[in-house]
């Protein structure tokens, strides 16, 4: 039996269906982005269809400012805002476990609880060492494992990381089922068929270049007649900063496991260089996105979507900041406090991954693959 994760016709779904019906009779926006091209493939819109289109939307403002039916017109068409509300609902509907779905409605509380839990866990992890080990008070310079033993760190992050991957994976699967064509019993996995020329390859390029934030060759508007690259560039800083930090950790793990080279690594070593550059990206990008968000036209984004941004950006920024501080001050005697603080942020960050803004990346990627696959027909 196929469970429908979007069984309820919410206000955002009904409004999206109304808006797509109006848009599909107008089609003036069809050259702006794939949302309207995908819309034109359909005559009617199921809840899955609008969830797919909503996640394909990159939330620029072109179609709102161009719309002859925008509020206060009685048709009240505001696709960016309506879709931004529907996206949050689609995140919550796909969340695993289902009882965690309310996290999307209270992102600051979720973040605060996760941080408290992270702080407790890292303090406990460190405390295991305090018992009967005098080195704790005066750890060797930059010796993180004297504060939290390597095995403890690996176990802790292994569990948390595995949980995040499983939760995201199940959410992803629920999401692609919810947007699949109901006439097809078993939707093809969006990841089937790799290669640069495949729909997955094309969608990967779309995602990695944020193509649909400048699909017409110019940056999309973020205010009426204002085309600025900042949102795209700051997103690139954030995304590639995150990737570099991930790469840094992976390289360090290989150093440790394969070569037996134990941290701390030199400032010129690959993990430290990757982590430093990535960490800077994660300071600049989230701070920039926060500023871009602040001056953004409130007509473009629903409050439920907008409220997801700040906690996620704050977590990225603070995780990076504590990591860079730890790196810069790892020779100092107060390093253990910094380490415990940083680990708390990293733990909270991973735990909240499946329940916050992070999921937009994987659901948008799924929508992009679906779009490329449909376009191939």
């Amino acid at each position, binding site marked *: 039996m196929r469970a429908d994760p979007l069984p309820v016709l919410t206000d955002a779904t009904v409004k999206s269906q109304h808006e797509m*019906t*109006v848009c*599909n*009779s*107008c*089609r*003036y*926006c*069809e*050259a*702006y982005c794939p949302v309207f091209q995908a819309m*034109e493939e359909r*005559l009617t819109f199921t809840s899955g269809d609008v969830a797919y289109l909503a996640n394909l939307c990159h939330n620029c403002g*072109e*179609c709102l*400012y*161009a*719309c*002859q*039916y*925008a509020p*206060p*017109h*009685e*048709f009240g068409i505001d696709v960016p805002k309506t879709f931004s509300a529907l996206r949050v609902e689609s995140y919550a509907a796909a969340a695993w476990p289902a009882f965690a779905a309310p996290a999307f409605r209270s992102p600051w509380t979720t973040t605060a609880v996760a941080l408290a839990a992270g702080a407790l866990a890292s303090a406990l992890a460190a405390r295991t060492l305090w018992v009967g080990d005098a080195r704790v008070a005066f750890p060797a310079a930059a010796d993180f494992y004297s504060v939290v033993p390597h095995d403890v760190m690996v176990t802790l992050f292994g569990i948390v990381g595995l949980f995040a991957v499983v939760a995201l994976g199940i959410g992803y699967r629920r999401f692609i089922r919810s947007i699949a064509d109901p006439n097809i019993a078993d939707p093809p996995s969006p990841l089937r068929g790799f290669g640069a020329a495949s729909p997955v390859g094309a969608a990967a390029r779309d995602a990695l270049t944020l193509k649909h934030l400048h699909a*017409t060759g*110019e940056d999309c508007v973020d205010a*009426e*007649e204002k085309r600025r690259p900042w949102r795209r560039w700051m997103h690139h800083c954030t995304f590639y900063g995150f990737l570099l930090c991930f790469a840094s950790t992976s390289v360090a793990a290989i150093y440790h496991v394969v070569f037996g080279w134990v941290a701390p690594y030199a400032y010129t070593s690959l993990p430290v260089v990757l982590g430093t550059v990535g960490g800077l990206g994660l300071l600049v990008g989230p701070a920039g996105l926060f500023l871009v968000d602040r001056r953004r036209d409130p007509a473009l984004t629903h409050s439920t979507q907008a409220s997801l941004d700040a906690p996620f950006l704050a977590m990225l920024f603070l995780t990076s900041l504590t990591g860079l501080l730890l790196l810069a001050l790892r020779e100092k005697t107060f390093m253990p406090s910094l380490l415990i603080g940083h680990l708390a942020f990293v733990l909270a960050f991973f735990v909240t991954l499946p329940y916050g803004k992070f999921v937009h990346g994987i659901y948008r990627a799924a929508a992009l693959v679906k779009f490329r696959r449909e376009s191939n027909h």
Partner: protein
Amino acid sequence: MAPPEVYEVAVLGGGNAALCAALAASERGARVIVLERAPRVFRGGNSRHTRNLRCMHTAPTDILTESYSEDEFMTDLLRVTGGATNETLARIVVRASADAPGRMRRFGVRLQPSLRGTLHLGRTNAFFLGGGKALMNSYYAAAERRGVHVVYDADVIGLQIHDGRFESATVRINGREQQVRARSVVLAAGGFESNLEWLKEIWGDAADNFLIRGTPYNTGTVLKLMLDAGAEPVGDPTQCHAVAIDARAPKFDGGIVTRLDCVSLGIVVNKHGDRFYDEGEDFWPKRYAIWGRLVAQQPDQIAYSIIDAKAVGRFMPSVFPPIAAASIRELAALIHVPAGTLAATVERFNGAVRPGIFNHEALDDCRTDGLVPNKTHWAQRLDTPPFWAYPLRPGITFTYLGVKVDERARVALRGGPAANIFAAGEIMAGNILGKGYVAGVGMTIGTVFGEIAGREAWRGVSSDASASQTGHRAG
């Protein structure tokens, strides 16, 4: 608004022609004021609802395919107007249209090639990326960058014209009357299609059932003021461009989405359940304007397009849902048409359908025989439930009455051309488009004559200025 000052060019109106005039004058250095009657959110007149403009070109461009010659454009204009055109002015529009895309782009307008639904216009019409409101946003942004003074909610209620010279306009802004003085004026305030009283004077009570496809602000105030001031009229004062649209559309501003493209796929009956015209006479884009008038002539100005399941998916999706039923009689009850008559009409129609090979892309051989009126193409039996009905009403796009102008866009007064009064857009389109319509030509007229009017308005002012300077020096 700022304390009284004298502008060099005042533009009355805020649509495509108005902004083209304002930009043409301001790029030459004029101090320009634009008086737009609508609030900012609804600025742009009927241009808000447009999507493209027709332009000639001798070779394929990045947005237009093949070529569209001056002669072909002229031939199209002569055909649709049946000769009701000033050929000199028409040729000016056609020739200047070649430069329109380039000019528009200089002001930040973005154009696109036509996509799937509009391929038949890809050769003749340049499409605005995002449509007419996006076009107007670009123009207003360009005007603001150039320091054009744009005033919204500015209702022109009087014109002071003496000896063929414009002196000032009386404008109501936020309930306060003010005088706006300018050394020349461009009238670009559209027609009178949203003036329900004026429409009733012409069409009587039938006008109560008309829907206005565009802005509610085109009440023809400026047009009437000018005619009262002695401007020579042009265009049939009783004619308007009327399209059959969905009867459930809003009274104003329904725009493009209220169109219905299914008429040629089924039959159309009036409120008594009788057919009244050949639904398959020609392709719908060539017939939708005729159907506005046809529906206006039916009792209560209402008609119903009736199709069956075979037509589903063959026409552009409509914004309002079809009225659906499992049988013709049930459908008749839903649309309050006598069931017996409608059933008999459908039965007679089905019996008269001759065998043929259906092809909606061509004038096919599916027709009826022996009916009055016959359906001459795309006639298929209505026999596959569900049956769908869409109610139709006349949707008014624009009116033809305007002021006469010369090739410099000067308004013709009874004593000769006005010294400093120019016109552009729908208010003078009747010079070129005396009747009929061909897609995108209204925007071409507005763009070309907007530019001419703005340029000429400034030329008059600047030559006055240099003349008076010369005079001073001589004195």
